[in-house]
């Protein structure tokens, strides 16, 4: 099983304005870690530091215990990385582009064929003879993803892996990552909260180059209370009756004659009271958080952090 670690990593491109500040985390074994943060928070910089595309200004990063700045070849030996928008030479065809990766990862010719076929089954690659320069953005992204998978490396560093993919392709990739995380270690940066919720077991929230929170996805909900509820009644409810919720709610918005969205202060006490009142109004068939907990957590953490600074 693989591992990755950053220890006291600081990175600045100009003295005095660090992009990452004293970043430390370590993961090993198997699973998927979501790496979240707004644009410019340092997500991609961290991934680049891990694979040795950038040199830490302070601290060090390791992959499977090896610092890529010391021994790039051994550090990257069992790592698949998709960072920014990888572009194989446009003159090469799909097979040639993937063959180079497979050979560099130590596959024999026969096994390269098998691995490219395996990636094709997983990702529905474009025709192997098609030149990279002729592919659409989504097709190129699938080839880039295949390049990270070839040779079945134990660690995968994926920077917005579903960027440029259509909805069907995103579903395909999410299903693939969910399978892979059982016996691979995946670090995945993304802006798609739904994707992270669906794929990742743990999340790291990053803001302005510092870690705001590291937590299991299922425990984030305990820390961050959703402030919106969707309530669905068994039968249509008149707006006048729903107004009974006003003292508890910040805002009440009808979604249909049976469904309502209620914004509130997010506390468990108010949530319980709203549920009781709703049950008095009518038969409740659904009572749930309106938005993704992770998304709210993200926004709340960022807000709190910005207020603090």
């Amino acid at each position: 099983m693989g591992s990755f670690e950053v220890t006291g990593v600081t990175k600045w491109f100009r003295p005095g304005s660090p992009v990452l500040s004293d970043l430390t985390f370590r993961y090993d074994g198997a699973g998927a870690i979501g790496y979240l943060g707004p644009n410019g928070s340092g997500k991609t910089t961290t991934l680049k530091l891990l694979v040795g595309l950038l040199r830490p200004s302070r601290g060090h990063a390791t992959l499977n215990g090896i610092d890529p700045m010391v021994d790039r070849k051994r550090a990257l030996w069992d790592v698949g990385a998709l960072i920014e928008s990888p572009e194989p030479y446009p003159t090469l065809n799909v097979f040639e582009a993937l063959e180079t990766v497979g050979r560099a990862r130590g596959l024999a010719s026969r096994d390269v064929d098998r691995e490219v076929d395996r990636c094709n089954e997983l990702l529905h690659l474009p025709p192997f003879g098609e030149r990279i320069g002729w592919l659409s953005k989504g097709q190129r992204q699938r080839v880039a993803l295949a390049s990270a998978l070839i040779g079945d490396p134990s660690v995968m560093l994926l920077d917005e892996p579903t960027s440029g993919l259509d909805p069907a392709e995103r579903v395909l990739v999410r299903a693939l990552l969910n399978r892979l995380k059982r016996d691979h270690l995946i670090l995945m940066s993304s802006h798609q909260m739904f994707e992270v919720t669906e794929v990742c077991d743990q999340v790291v929230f990053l803001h302005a180059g510092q870690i705001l929170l590291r937590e299991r996805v299922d425990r984030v909900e305990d820390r961050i209370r959703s402030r919106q509820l969707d309530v669905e009644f068994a039968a249509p409810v008149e707006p006048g009756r729903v107004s009974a919720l006003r003292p508890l709610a910040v805002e009440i918005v009808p979604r249909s004659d049976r469904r309502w969205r209620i914004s509130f202060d997010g506390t468990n006490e108010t949530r319980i009271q709203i549920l009781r009142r709703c049950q008095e109004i009518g038969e409740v068939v659904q009572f749930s958080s309106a938005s993704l907990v992770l998304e709210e957590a993200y926004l709340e953490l960022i807000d709190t952090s910005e207020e603090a600074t």
Partner: protein
Amino acid sequence: MVATPKPTPAEGPGAVSRHFVSDFEDWRIVTVHQLQHYLRTNRFFGLLTFVAVISALTLSFEVSAGVAAVRVEQLYRSSEYLSNYLSNAGLWIILAAAFFGGDALSVDFSTGAGYYMLVLPVRRSVLLAGRYTAAVLVTLAIAGVYYVFATAGAVYFFGGASVPWAGLAESLGVSALFALAALSVAFCVSSFFRSPAAGVLVTVLALYVGFVTLATVFELAGIEPWFSLQYAGGAIDAVLDTDFIHQQTVPLGADQYYIVWVATVVEGIEIMAAYIAAFLPLSVYLYHRKESTG
């Protein structure tokens, strides 16, 4: 001390095993990868066609002038003909070196190519070596076309028996060394710049325009331009020149002279070797240090 990663054994049906790849094997993989790319680029076809067309035109003018005229002009010597014809080989080599070396490394930091190649378990020095090898081979292919036309002309005008094959092979060897030197400079420029176009342009400007201008200025001042790679390229045709003169004094007027130097073969080889020794390690160092900040 970190142990060499063990081969990954195949587990389960359809699983594949991996072996740790040696630097030599990596070099071969990168060379093939780069050659596959170069041989399909428009710049390769464009330059190859350009060299072929120019060479064919030169040859056709000579053919139309007639065998007798060419023989007189070339002092009835096949070697003289080849020497004169190949005096332009350096230009083609510099152009090819700029085209194939000028962006060989900067492409990793200005396009997504680096995010594809630099995350592979391959040392940067090996990546550079593979690309350098591919660039040398492609540059020699371009120069080779020029040599084919030169040889065809020599055979046509002087007969196959009179062609100095050993001298021709020696000239080709000096051309190869010149290509190595020119590509060392081009790779160094490429490792310094971030824009591929800038790398190509600066290489051409430095190796050709810059050196020719400087050499002329130095010659006017009566100084041998030994520092110029373009000057060293004179060794390519000097090998075949049976009336070789290293230093010529050309009268300009009353008591005024202009001294012209032509590099001797040994001098040319020394200059080329010095360029390789200086610029190739520098480009390895710069490429190794460069970060993907874009």
